[in-house]
């Protein structure tokens, strides 16, 4: 036989939850889960996906990210330069140089496909989140800004051997 436990009707249960939560909020004993944001900063999880950073050195401007982007919010321009031969008498190598790498964060929907698809590990998620601007156009963040965020990328454990 199942043990019988008297149950509150559903609508009273809902009210009870609200009341309990109200007293929790008002009592100084319970810990408040809120962060008074502009005055105190939230400590986000180390691998939180706040914004996308770029390692411009690693980027080969292969355009894979720009092509995969569902919002078309990545703008890449580059050109090729000839490098001096590594050995005397050798052939001159051409090398891709990144001129422009902009992400329009007004369009970006943070799907992370660009990070997934990058073959040279040039794009990273960072927990940085304070990059709002006063107008829409300024949400187009350029290469230098994306490079700055690279410092906030947490260390990875490295790839599997």
């Amino acid at each position, binding site marked *: 036989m199942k043990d019988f436990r008297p149950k509150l009707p559903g609508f009273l249960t809902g009210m009870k939850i609200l*009341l309990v939560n109200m007293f929790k909020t008002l009592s100084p004993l319970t810990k408040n889960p*809120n962060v008074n944001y502009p005055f105190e900063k939230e400590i986000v999880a180390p691998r939180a996906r706040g914004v996308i950073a770029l390692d411009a050195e690693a980027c080969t401007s292969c355009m894979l990210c720009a092509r995969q982007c569902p919002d078309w919010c990545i703008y890449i321009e580059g050109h090729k330069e000839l490098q001096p031969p590594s050995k005397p008498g050798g052939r001159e190598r051409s090398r891709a140089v990144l001129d422009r790498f902009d992400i329009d964060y007004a369009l970006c929907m943070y799907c992370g496909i660009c990070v997934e698809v990058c073959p040279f590990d040039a794009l990273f998620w960072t927990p940085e989140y304070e990059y709002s601007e006063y107008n829409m156009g300024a949400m187009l963040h350029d290469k230098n800004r994306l490079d700055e965020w690279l410092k906030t990328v947490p260390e990875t454990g490295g790839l599997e051997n």
Partner: protein
Amino acid sequence: MSFGTEILIKVGVVLAFALNGAVIFTLMDVKGSAWMQRRPGPLHVGLRGFIFPLAEVIKFIQKEDIIPTKVDKTVFKLAPAFILFSVFGLFVVVPISPTLVVADLNLGVFYLLAISTISTLGVLTAGWSSANKYSLMGGLRAAGQLIAYELPLILAVVGVVIQAETMSLVGIVEKQIEWGLPFVIAGQGVAFVIFMIAATAEMMRIPFDMPIGESELVSGFMTEYSGIRFLIFYIAEYINMFVMCAIAATLFLGGYHIPLLPVEWVNFYGPVSLLTKTLLLGFILVLVRWSFPRFREDQLQNIAWKILIPLSLLNILITSVMKVVF
């Protein structure tokens, strides 16, 4: 004191009472809901956010009052006034203490129910004159709902009137003092619940906010309103909530009197007592608002016609039988 001065003072007192009540209830709704959801609520407008309704009023006054081209201009402009008129009218008969009442009418309850019906007119004209399909739908829904819930409201009060043998609100409270118990315990418990449900529907607050229903009708009959006229709707909602709670406290919870306290001092503790009861009822309304989902239109009508009205008729029957027997 001349008649004119007296009227002026009474109007001033009613205005002060109504608007302060609206401010208190706005605060209770906003702050209370925030606390119930583990948020601090408005924090930055002075005194830890406790004067934010004033900022709200200033914001609405300095906004542009947009009147669309195709609306019926006179009706559109007058509609908020109807609602404000109706809710201010309700204050006239609510006694704060046996002597502190604007007018102790012999037909107080009748007056209350009659004057509260005028807000239906305001809502319907607002919905109709806006020349907007959402407003019209909202106005029609509001009319259906307000008419449906007017009946249980009236029938619930009839039980109280039968038990108290008077229609004057002061008389009803005196009767409760005589009985020693407020009517909610002494026989009108069902009527109280019916009254509160019907009053919530009359206020168009959340479990019954089909006419406003922002997810389907934008904002119902208020869609086209902006600036100060929207503010009037907004304030009227809270004044209505305040005065309905005050009426419920007067009719069912013993009004300005608390059992076991000496009746001679009622002029001193009366206002505090009534305000406390009003705030308690208001708090229950806030609690209900944040724990219930919205009723669908047919469910809403079913509750009114199939449950509340038969129940309140039964309540009247039992009350009158008891009255005759004892």
